[in-house]
């Protein structure tokens, strides 16, 4: 970890940005943007996460290998999501259609 000491006002500034972004994400949820609702929600969440990682967790001031660890973690999560979805999204048949639930739940 570097000896760089982040001044408190940076922290407060980041905190306020996170509050604004939280309000934004709630507000955006009330607007019907169709499929873009999820995109906006994830984008705002990712921006918040990035601010926390960079400033609260000092990633901005950390050695390169720390940054490599962060990037790898995110990249691997992305692979898991993307490649698994690549199966479901490119299927010719729809898996979940026409599944009916027997009375199992009531018994």
């Amino acid at each position, binding site marked *: 970890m570097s000896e760089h000491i982040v001044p408190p006002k940076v922290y407060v500034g980041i905190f306020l940005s996170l509050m604004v972004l939280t309000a934004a994400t709630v507000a955006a949820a009330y607007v019907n943007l169709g499929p873009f609702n999820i995109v906006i929600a994830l984008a*705002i969440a990712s921006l918040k996460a990035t601010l926390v990682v960079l400033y609260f967790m000092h990633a901005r001031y950390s050695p390169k290998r720390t940054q490599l660890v962060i990037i790898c973690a995110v990249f691997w999560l992305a692979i898991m*999501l993307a490649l698994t979805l690549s199966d479901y999204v490119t299927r010719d048949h729809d898996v979940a259609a026409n599944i009916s639930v027997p009375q199992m739940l009531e018994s």
Partner: protein
Amino acid sequence: MHRTGELYGQFETLEQQKESAALGMWVFLATEVLFFGGLFMTYTLNRHYYGTAFGVGSNTLDLKLGGLNTVILILSSLTMAMSVWASHVGKRKATTGFLVATLILGTAFLGVKVIEYKQKFDHHLIPGYHFQIDYRAQHPSPNDDPKEIEAEKEELSKAFAKDPDLNAHAQLYFSLYFGMTGLHALHMIVGAGMLLWLIRQSMLGRFTPTYNTPVEMIGLYWHFVDIVWIYLFPLLYLIDRHQ
């Protein structure tokens, strides 16, 4: 328990020791990303297929409580970061104070979660044999707002029309809700335990500008738990709110 700044035998220098601790914590957090990742994958798939049910489920969550928790947790990240700063500049009382604040906020978060979980229990929304997505609509309690119940009934009838298996799919949503927030809460409880230890150490004056590694490392963990919530909040609470 070793004294402030003591070098462990396997290390050559304090610098090496600190570097190792930091890298170790970051690598551990990487494992946590993949650990939660499996649940996020499950969520992604199920939301893709059962969007209606997920919307219905999400709308049963109390947005005020969820939003409050988000604010509480982000504030606790601020106080945690401030305690790291305080330990860096040698302000011992402030270090302890900020740690205590973080702990109080974390506990408040867990308290709100308990309230939310209790609500779900009352409305038969715990996955299992008694799960019934329309329980509240069918059996409103006297303090429920009748307009709200009407709106919910209408939402449910539209949803059932789109998805006859709404109950089963909504149960999947709630399994994920409890699974993801439950795992998150477990991590917070562990974090709270570590904060208790940190507070004690801080009160004993163990953290100085040359040695504050535990504060930094546990801080990293705490921020990570915050980041998980930053994703959980929109993904669980903000689906289809515009309806």
